[in-house]
């Protein structure tokens, strides 16, 4: 959907796809020799904000790293706020909300000229290029630039920046291997965005299962559920309450609750989930719920003495109604 041609499909997006480096591209390998830095596997495509690009540490203005990853090709989505046309190239100033970055594109084909004419001030563009530094200033040598037509792409790009930063700083150190993909991600899909969307539902679950941090989180949620004031509440605990008590964002609670629905069943049946299979827990839940419903209906069939008929019908009707319902 969003320029899928430059991405390798949904599976590749989360096996690397240019965003996350593979095991062969650890920073120490890249720094070991210049030949390894030329290795194709080390050239990842990083979605970055201008703020991130401005803070990249560097020693020689040509080798940038961020979150332990060598920065080579970057992608930037923002609004064109200035355009300078020259004979052999044109320069755009692109503002993504975090800052303004200079993007320089050389005319190499007639197509480049047409492409430049389609971009004006105020146009949102997606820029791919090499990040370069010169005398303290940073700029992008653009090799691909195209206007944005679906503005969800702007939001999607910024979320990708957050996700890649999160992955490179937190998840990479926890998971030994990239998180396993589920069946919902077609490996041969050429639509990166679809891959990103379908993976996003399952990626947190797969990633979290391998994380001690998430196991701790799961335990904390169970602790909240098992607090005395919540244990006696037949209605259970709303996830808003859990999020508030643990001071966690709602999307984390939602991810955990989707993957751990069996824990909720075991809570309702007061059966420790580690001791019984989930099927038994589900059955017990069903029996308990059924019992509660039957009690409720039994109460509903009771009628006050003043409404009884002279034939004293309710005393015989009540059990009939009760058993008729079941």
């Amino acid at each position, binding site marked *: 959907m969003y320029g899928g041609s430059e991405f390798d499909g949904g599976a590749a997006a989360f096996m690397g796809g240019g965003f996350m480096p593979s095991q062969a591209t650890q920073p120490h390998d890249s720094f070991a020799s210049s030949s390894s830095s030329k290795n194709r596997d080390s050239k990842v495509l990083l979605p970055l*904000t201008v703020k991130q690009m401005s803070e990249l540490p560097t020693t020689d203005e040509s080798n940038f790293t961020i979150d332990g990853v060598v920065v080579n090709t970057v992608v930037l989505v923002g609004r064109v706020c200035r355009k300078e046309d020259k004979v052999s190239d044109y320069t755009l100033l692109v503002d993504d909300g975090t800052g303004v970055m200079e993007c320089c594109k050389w005319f190499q084909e007639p197509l480049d000229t047409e492409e430049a004419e389609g971009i004006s001030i105020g146009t949102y563009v997606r820029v791919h290029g090499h990040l370069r530094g010169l005398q303290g200033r940073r700029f992008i040598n653009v090799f691909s630039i195209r206007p944005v037509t679906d503005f969800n792409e702007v939001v999607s790009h910024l979320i990708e920046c957050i996700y890649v930063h999160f992955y490179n700083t937190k998840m990479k150190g926890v998971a030994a291997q990239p998180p396993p993909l589920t069946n919902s991600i077609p490996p041969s899909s050429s639509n990166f965005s679809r891959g990103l969307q379908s993976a996003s539902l399952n990626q947190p679950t797969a990633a979290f299962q391998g994380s001690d941090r998430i196991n701790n989180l799961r335990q904390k949620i169970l602790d909240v559920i098992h607090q005395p004031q919540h244990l006696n509440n037949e209605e259970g605990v709303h996830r808003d309450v859990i999020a508030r008590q643990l001071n966690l964002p709602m999307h984390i609670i939602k991810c955990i609750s989707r993957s751990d629905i069996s824990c909720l069943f075991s809570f309702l049946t007061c059966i420790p989930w580690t001791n019984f299979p989930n099927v038994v827990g589900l059955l017990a839940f069903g029996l308990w719920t059924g019992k509660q419903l039957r009690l409720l209906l039994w109460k509903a069939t009771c009628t006050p003495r003043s409404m009884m008929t002279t034939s004293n019908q309710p005393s015989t009707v009540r059990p009939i109604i009760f058993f008729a319902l079941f």
Partner: protein
Amino acid sequence: MDTSNPAILVNGNLLPTHVRKRVRTVIQVLNSDRGSVIGKSTDDQQLVIKGSPPSTPLTKFVEVIGIADSDKSIQAEIWTNFGDNFDASSFNQLCQLANGEYQHLFL
């Protein structure tokens, strides 16, 4: 490269924390009048966007960049039509992330 004048991503709830700063938000246009536009933020708050909209007709969703001059209004400098099919909930969550745990990537 210049990061001295960022536009902070905000929704209705976050706007009060950034009064007199340059902000950026997406609204759903409810009512358009000369000199101002009444819109609904992505977290269902009513906002007043002051300024002159562009001459082209506004789409359902519009991004405005400008200075927040009160809890519920923005003096817009830049208007951009974001079309009719925009995922407001994703933008809303992005605002929360960009102003929360991942603020260092934006400001």
